[in-house]
């Protein structure tokens, strides 16, 4: 029932320092883009872009820093559960907002 510690250690070692540095650089770059886009004052489109970039950043953190990339299928799908749930909840809220 216990997949064993050794397997876990192996996957952790695969993440070299370089991976973390690259992930960090990616986060900094994305932050810079967010700030840059803000200065363009794009209105609603600006909000959409900011949200997409924020999701990308969350994705980078999850995949690399939180090791979701090396996890089993099961755990990856467990992560998707709240994502779908949030989508459904926001969607249901919008059938009020849009038709009000």
């Amino acid at each position, binding site marked *: *029932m*216990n997949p064993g510690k050794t397997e876990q250690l192996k996957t952790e070692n695969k993440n070299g320092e370089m991976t973390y540095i690259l992930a960090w650089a990616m986060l900094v770059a994305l932050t810079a883009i967010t700030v840059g886009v803000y200065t363009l004052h794009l209105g609603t489109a600006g909000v959409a872009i900011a949200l997409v970039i924020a999701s990308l950043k969350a994705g980078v953190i999850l995949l690399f820093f939180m090791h979701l990339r090396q996890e089993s299928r099961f755990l990856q799908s467990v992560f998707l*559960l*709240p994502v779908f*749930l949030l989508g*459904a*909840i926001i969607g*249901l*809220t919008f*059938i*009020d*907002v*849009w*038709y*009000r």
Partner: protein
Amino acid sequence: MNESGIQPGFYAAPGSRTGIFSWIFSTDHKRIGLLYLFSIFSFFAVGVCFGLLMRLELIAPGRTIVGPSTYNAFFTLHGVIMIFLFVIPGIPVSLGNFFMPLQIGARDVAFPRINLLSWWFYITGGLLALLSLFTGHGPPDTGWTFYAPYSIRTGTNVVLAVSAAFVLGMSSILTGLNFITTIHRMRAPGMTWFRMPLFVWSVYATAWVQILATPILGITLLLVIIERLFGVGFFDPAKGGDPILYQHLFWTYSHPAVYIMILPAMGVVTEIIPVFSRRTVFGYKAIAFSSMAIASVGYFVWGHHMFTSGMSDVARVVFSFITFIVAIPSGVKVFNWVASMYKGSIRVDAPLLFVLAFIFLFSIGGLTGLILGALATNIQVHGTYFVVGHFHYVIFGGAVFAFFGGLHYWFPKITGRMYNEKRARLAWLFLFIGFNALYFPMFILGWEGMPRRYYDYLPKFQPLNVVSTVGSWIVATGLILLFANLLRSARKGAAAGPNPWGGTTLEWQTSSPPPHENFGEIPVITQGPYIYNPSKGKGHGTA
């Protein structure tokens, strides 16, 4: 072993701490479970007192004992305490903490220290809530729902009360996380998913709701605090906010939260029925899956609390429809329970009496829920005593009666002693009669248009209000009898032995009270629970 022949079990566990510190710093799931049990029932007692005071005020129209603003504080505190400090932690943190690891054949939960931390968060939240009564400009008066914009504008101590609920939410999330991990990782060898007792299934489904829904409440309450302290306009239309957004966010958590209250109660019921009918549960998988179905569909019905809020018509129709769907799995369970007893060899002791009362009262609560869930009838009874009747039937008649059933059922395992059966039945009788006298009149009053959350009412409503108030006194008597009996029996009851009811799940295979770390040797499971057919063995015990 003491003079009565009862092993001290985990109560005598070796540890570096003594006295109260051996409890409040313990990481043993059984001690934490009892710690929680005492904590939540202490708050329950306070909540009941506020309930009784409200009923006393309502015995006659006009001012009886308190004026309008005190009454507003009463129903707010009553609601906040009963919901956030009693029934949401409720069964999972107490009976769940104590029995879930035992039932899956584990020595403890996956994260014993986080378990203790969750209790500390709970107590911190409770103290913050109490602090909000005596500091600032008076106790909160918003109702337990903290609806905006009133909660933004009132001068009372909303920020502190809301922070309390926030901290309590963190406690709830930690418990959920801990239980899910425990159930995934710590089951005894051979304890497959479909050999787990159904109480474990119900706690598991509840834990998912705790993890996924509670953060929404946290964010919402945080927004209320930010709006109050910094004037950011999220919810108050005067500042450009949207009060209906508040209701969406609040009920996105608080409807799933009613399943945090009722699912574990259903789990307790499902444990008690086979033991007292000597029969396998009818439709094991149907009950397990209906728990998961309730937990998941339950996320999508919150709008039924908002039919009169000014939400769009499309949304109202959709939410009304989904509400009817979520009633199906609850119905499945009720039929399964009744079918489980059919042709059983039924033994009506106090635990089963509470279960039978649960089925009866919960069915009334559930069916009146459909009246509320139907868009058209909701408009008539929205915001009236019909709603108050409905949710007390579900939460008190359902969740709390099942809790009491579970307390009696597992009492001999927790204490090693038997409670006094005759007194327990007497307490049950008082509670059952008093409960219906207290709450049934509310359906009629609500139907006739008496609004909730007022200290006053039209004189024509008085007769039924008197019945209701007298009912509250009968309930109070029943509660005193019940707890006096349990507390007395915990010291004086006769030795119960490891398995007084002939239960088949694992907690009955170890001594009463269980030893530190639960089992001498972790059992190996070869078949499902609830097997009472002698030719097929005896459930988890015979492995």
